Every structure is written in C-alpha cells, then in structure tokens.
C-alpha cells in the first residue's frame, strides 16, 4: 500500500491531531502502509471558493495537485470530505479528452502535464488511468477491511455508543466513481464497529452538518441551526461520541455545540478513534485542539477497555 497523504487546509491548521493519528495508524507500528511525502501540494482547491466561481480555475488547480501524484505510483488519500469531493470530481472531469487538453494547455505554462497514472505499456503505447483519489475511510475499508482493522485493535472500545456522521461530500454527488451507497452507507459504520464500538442508528443519519458550501463562513447562525437538528437526533439516541471522516464536519459539530450551549458530546475523527482502539496514547492525538472536551470520552474508553 503506497499512499500520498493530502492533508488539505483544515486538518493541519485546526486539528493537527487528525493528521498525526492518521500517520500513526498507517505507520509501521500499526497498519504498515508506505507514505509518500509530497511538499508541493496546494489547496485542493476548495469547492465553494473555486468551483462556484470559475470551474476552469478549479479544474486547473486540482489537476496541478494530481500531476504531483501521477508519477509516484501512489494513491492520493485524503482525510477531508471537501478535498476528496473536489479532487475526485476533477479526476472524473479530466477523463474528458477535450477538458484534459484544455487544462494541459494551461498547465504547460508551469511545465506540467496531466496524463494520469501509467498502468502498462503495449508496444509503443502507454496506457494511463486517472489518478486514484481516495478517502481514508474507503482506503481503510477496502485495503484492510473490517478484519484487517479489528486485528490491530489492542484496546477494543466495546460498550461505547458512537453516532456516525458520514458527511455529504463523502457520499454525494453519486457518480460513476462514488465509493459508498448514499442511501445506506456502510464504510464508516464498519470501521467504528471494527474498533469494537457500536454504531448507533438515529433518525436523519445522513443529514448535513450545516457548515458546507461556505455557510459557516457567511452565516454561522444558519450553520448552527442546521447542526442543532442533527445534534438533537444524536443526543436523543444516547451516544458517547460523534465520529466523522471530515475535519470540517468535525469543526462544525465541535464549534456549534459551544455556540448552542448544549450538553456536550465529544467529536472525533475516525483516524483518532482508530488510533485510540489501536492503543495509541491519547496524549498524541491532539484532543486539546477540540472545543468540546474529549476527556469524558477518554475516561469511558479506559473504564470499558480490557487492556
């Protein structure tokens, strides 16, 4: 397994613990994936800023990021739904020859060309496929599977009730390259179950967190109002934590709970949850960067753990 981590903007600047826990669980002590470091990435670019204003610039900027990975023989793996959606959509659009030529004309000005990843050679012909853009949830689910993850668990989170929040851009829009079933997604739930915890069912499970599309930036009250509905469903279901695969959803749930002054439910990224289950010391997982204190949850983990 060769992965190139695409960390994006939110994770390193708001939740560095998410990046660290991902590095740790994928690292040699645990899952043993090979990580390829690329230092020339830029913003994915963000959909509300670029895709909404100029599709061409969005595609060119995304293609530039993809070019950096194409010759590294690695899959691009992101821990953020926004980056995932933006880059995946870009690979799809770049399969269109006309669009790809257009983008390459622009990229030529900085000495780059998007071809995709070389699959094989047939005589003089080289066969390329689009750069594989993957979400950490899907990569863990497909490449390691429930068993592969469960085998690594040293500290099962049994007895803990987790509310899973997939986040919109992990599931939608549904296209040819969609990874999970938007009506009944299973991947994140499976990962939570693999960690030994229980994924709780609650109404409106696939609802939006409220932050997306620049709402959080423009009208935070609206974002919080949307979050409130979902929070109430989660709270009523009786859960110990909310687990998501997206730092922006994490940020929204985390922040909104403070703004709304509700009974706090800790919010974790799936990488952090798995790191805890793998027995990584919570010290290293950056929980001090969360607004809602994760300590009550950590206490429960100790209380129910079997180490």
């Amino acid at each position, binding site marked *: 397994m060769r992965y190139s981590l695409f960390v994006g903007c939110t994770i390193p600047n708001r939740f560095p613990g998410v990046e660290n826990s991902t590095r740790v669980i994928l690292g040699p002590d645990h899952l043993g994936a090979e990580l390829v470091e690329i230092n020339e990435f830029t913003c994915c670019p963000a959909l509300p800023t670029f895709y909404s204003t100029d599709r061409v610039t969005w595609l060119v900027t995304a293609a530039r990021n993809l070019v950096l990975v194409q010759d590294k023989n690695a899959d691009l793996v992101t821990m953020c739904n926004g980056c995932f959606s933006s880059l995946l959509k870009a690979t799809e659009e770049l399969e269109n020859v006309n669009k790809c030529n257009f983008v390459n004309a622009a990229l030529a000005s900085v000495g780059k060309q998007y071809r995709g990843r070389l699959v094989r050679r047939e005589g003089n012909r080289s066969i390329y496929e689009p750069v594989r853009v993957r979400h950490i949830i899907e990569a863990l689910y497909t490449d390691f599977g429930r068993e592969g993850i469960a085998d690594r668990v040293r500290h099962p989170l049994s007895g803990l009730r987790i509310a899973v929040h997939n986040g919109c851009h992990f599931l939608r829009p549904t296209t040819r390259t969609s990874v999970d079933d938007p*009506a*009944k997604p299973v991947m994140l739930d499976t990962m939570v179950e693999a960690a030994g915890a229980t994924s709780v069912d609650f*109404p*409106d499970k696939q609802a939006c967190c409220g932050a997306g599309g620049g709402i959080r930036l423009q009208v935070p009250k609206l974002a919080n109002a949307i979050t409130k509905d979902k929070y109430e469903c989660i709270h009523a279901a009786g859960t110990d934590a909310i687990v998501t695969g997206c730092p922006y959803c994490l940020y929204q749930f985390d922040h909104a709970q403070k703004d709304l002054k509700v009974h706090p439910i800790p919010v974790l990224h799936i990488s952090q949850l798995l790191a805890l289950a793998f027995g990584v010391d919570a010290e290293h997982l950056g929980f001090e960067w969360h607004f809602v204190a994760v300590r009550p949850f950590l206490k429960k983990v100790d209380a129910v753990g079997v180490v």
Partner: protein
Amino acid sequence: MGKGRVGVYLCTCRGEIAKHIDLDRLAAGLSEDPAVAFVRVDQELCGPAGQDVLRASHGEGRSDRVVAGACTPNIQGLIMRAALEGAGLNKYLYEQVNIRELCAWVHDDREAATDKALRLMRAAIARALMLEALDDIELKVVPESLVIGGGVAGMQAALEIATRGFLAHIVERTGALGGRAYRLSVTFPTHNCGICCMQYCRECVLTPKIEDVMQNPKIKVHLNTRIEKIDGGFGDRLVTLEGPGGREELRVGTIVVATGSDVFDARRIPEYGFGVFRDVVTTMDLERMLEQEREIGGRFVRPSDGRTMPRTVNFIQCVGSRDRVKGNLHCSLVCCTYAIGQAREIKKLHPEVEVYIHYIDLRGPYRGFEEHCEQAKAEGVVFVRGRVAEVSEKKGRVRIRFEDTDLGKQIDMATDLVVLAVGQEPAAESERIAKLLHLQLDEDRFIKDLNPNFPSEYRRGVFVAGCAEGPKGIRYSIEDAKSAAAAAADLMAAGKIHKTRAIAVVDETRCRGCGRCEEACEYHAARVVEKDGRLVSVRDEARCEGCGVCAAQCCNRAITIKHHTRPQMEALMRRVLGTKGRGAGGKGQGAQGEVG
C-alpha cells in the same frame, strides 16, 4: 417537354415545400432530362383535387411510369399511388422522393436545398426507368387467432373474435384469467370492485366476462402456458406452446398481443423505504387489504403490528412514474384515478381515518374523473401538492417529509400507513414476445404503434391491445381490444391478403447452396433444400420481409430483392453520387459496379 416516358409530379405541400425549395427551378431542371415526359406542379397532390390531377394527367397516356417529389411515401404517398393505380398505373412503376422531410424541412439554404432535391429527383428518375411492373403476392389467412395474455384486454379481444365466428386461443402465463384488473378492489368510474369487469358477483352483474370466455365454444383457453416459439409469416404462423400438457402447436392467421404491463418495483426508490419499513405498502398491497376488510372485516390494520387500525393514511403519487432518474419517464396515467378510488374506499369503510394524497399534478384524462376527484374532496380526502421527499421511522411510527408546494412549507408528519401509488411499466414478457414477433419498442419500452394516431393498425397480421402498448385504464384497454379484434377479424374474414412483391428471389443457377442466407435470415424465410440432386436456397414468400440481408450475404450474387434490384439501386446511387457507370443513363443490364 421531353420525349421520355416518365411523368414527374411536384407538390408544393401548400407552401411547406415551396417555402424552402425553388420548385420552378426544380421543374425546369427536371424537364431537361430526356427521360422525362412532363413535369406538373400541384398545390396538394394527396388532396381530392390533386388526386384528380394525377388521374387525369396519367390518363392522357403520355407517361408509363411516375416519379413524384412530395412528402413521405409511407403515408400520403399511398394515397397518391392509389390514385394513379386508378388511372391504370402499375404500383411498382411509381417512385416517390421525400423532398419535404429530406430537403425542405432540414435545410436553411434554399438554393442548396433545391440542388439536393434536384439530385435526388434525377436519381429517382434514373431508377424509375428500370422499374418493372409486378403484381402483389396473395396469401391465404388462416381463420384462427392467437390472443397472448388473458387479462381484461385479452379476454375482450377473444370474445370479440369469437363473436365474429373465428376460433380464438387465449394463452395465459398464470393459472387464472382476469389479469391485474381482477385483483382490484375498486375500479373507476363505477367505484365497484374490479371483479365487475370480469364475472358475476354479488355486487354487480354488469359485464360478466370470465364465465363468458370459459363457456364460449369458439374460445380455447390455455392456462399456465408459455409461448416458446413463433414461426411462419403473414397470415400463417406456427406457434409453439409449452403448457401443463406438454408441447403444443397452433396454426393461426392473426395474433393479438395483450401481454399487459408490470407494476413498478417500489424498492427501486430507496428513499421511500419500501421493504424496509413495514408500514410502507404499495397500492397493490392495499387492494388486498381493502378487499379483505370489505369481505371479512378487521383486516384494515397497520402491517407493523397487525392489530391497530391506521388513523392516518398517506398516498404518494408518481412512484416510479415521471421519474427519469430512478423510474420511468412516462406518466402511468391510471395512478391518480385508482389512488383516489382507494382513498374514497377507505373513507367509506372508516370515515374517521385521515387520508392524504400527495401529488405532483392530478392527471385523470378520463370522462368522470373531475367528478370522482370532487367527490373525494367532499368525502374528506385531503389533497397535498408536493411529492414526498423521504420516508423515515421514528419511535415505531413512519414519518414523511415533504414540501407542501402550495404553502411553500416543509412538513414532517407522523403517519400510520404510507401507500405508494406505483406506476405501470412494460412487462418483461412483453419485450420477449415483441422480439419473437419483430415488433418495435418505443422509448419507454412499450410496444410501438405503427402510427400513434391510429390504434390497432396491423403489422403483418399482428395487433397490440391494452397496456402492452402503453399504460391504460380498464375501459380504454377494452376499447383497444375491441378495435384490435375487429381489425384481426376483418383480415380473417377477407381470407387473403396482398403482400408486396418486394422480396428476395433466388437465381437457382447461381446458388451453390452454401447456407449463409439461411443463417442470416431472422424471419426463417431462407431454407436450403435439395433440388435435382444439388443444394439450392429457396424463399418462403409469406415469411420474407425483403430486408435484403440474405442478398448482402450471398457470395455469388444469386439473390435479388425484387423492386430493389442491383441495376435499379446502382442507377439510383450513381445519379446521387454523380459517378458514371454502365448502369447510369438507362441501360442497366449486367451492371457490375461496386455500389448497390
């Protein structure tokens, strides 16, 4: 005027053609052709006056073959050809170029369109010179009919055929006659049970059907039977059945396809939770509940607990219809009507139940629908405009979320029973039968009409009735069946049909009996037989459709399609392409060009 023998007629199509094509220039250009006897331009050749012109002009005897530049040869062309036949022209000496659809309607450039028309007309004249007079093939029609499907349309068609004195075989896949209509608890517009369309029952004795069919000596019912193979051609088809009694063969002259439709599988719209939440049912499930409630009582209960009566019932319309993403694009036409009927039935049995109908548009293009709808409103059924977005479950009750589009408000309400008004879609069996009979399907995968304005126009003795041809209500299926049956009976009463001579013929001296044509023919018209000690291919005139596949396959050029012979087509192509060849200019014998 030239001294040729070809009479040329041009039609302005009441300006439709004249607007985009310079007919004067076209006429002048054609007059120069030495083969042309005269060129006449008329306002409307297919109209009564135009037909008179054709008859009178041809009657003068200056031409022995005719080329017309007008509209489509398949509709109005037939009228014009018939007029000329009345004046003594052999119909195989008539050629028509569609300068309306192929030139006038598709090009903006008037000059270029005129040039194209001129070229096409000249080519047609070149071909016309080589046409030979032929006569139609006459075929006998076997005086028996096969009706595929024993639903309301199939039964009506069989009864109608039997009444006219011909034997009808009903082949039904299931073990009972009656089809879907038999399972309905209420039918529009009488608001009686669906059985009333079928047989005597305690509620109604209006149209006793199943009994009539079973008793009729002229109707033979084959239940639990599947159609394996259909062979033969126009007027005489060999049908292989596979039934409980084993294999059986029928010989029939006409076929009525009444295979009906399937009900949409609601599981294909996951957001409605059919098959997940037990209190979400389809209208077909509700039919059974209502029927039992009426007959035994106490059966109108929530499926989730099997005890309590639902206090609130919500109907969701357009499930699988008008949905180009997860369902079918077409409107199913009957769902508004039957859902309102069911809603009224619930209100009749239990007035205290709240009934809501969620619709996008109320569509009931039927006589009496408005009254039906008004009565439902008066009886307390609530109509909500806005399709339900999703169904969920909370604390053991199903909830629906929707926008009331009249209010512009989102509503999230708890309910006890959600009824999905599932639409009709083409039956899988229908598609198989269509393939066996070489019938075309339309964009919704229903069997396509020959002419959408004229129901029951036949295609080689095959007629389509009822929902196989598109979603329909009971009354309209019956109407359809009647007209299909009448047309089939007429055909059998005539006893014979005329079929075009434009079919394949084999030059037995050239044929080496290789059998490629037999493999290629999808109508089973080509067969290799032994004749005078050598193998040769022969054609069954009744089966051959003149498609030309065998001619293209033949390595020895032993096969010719009459009326589309190699010299005729080559002359045509050379004039279109503007190339010279031995075939061009009127002498086509022994043409060996690459074209054709």
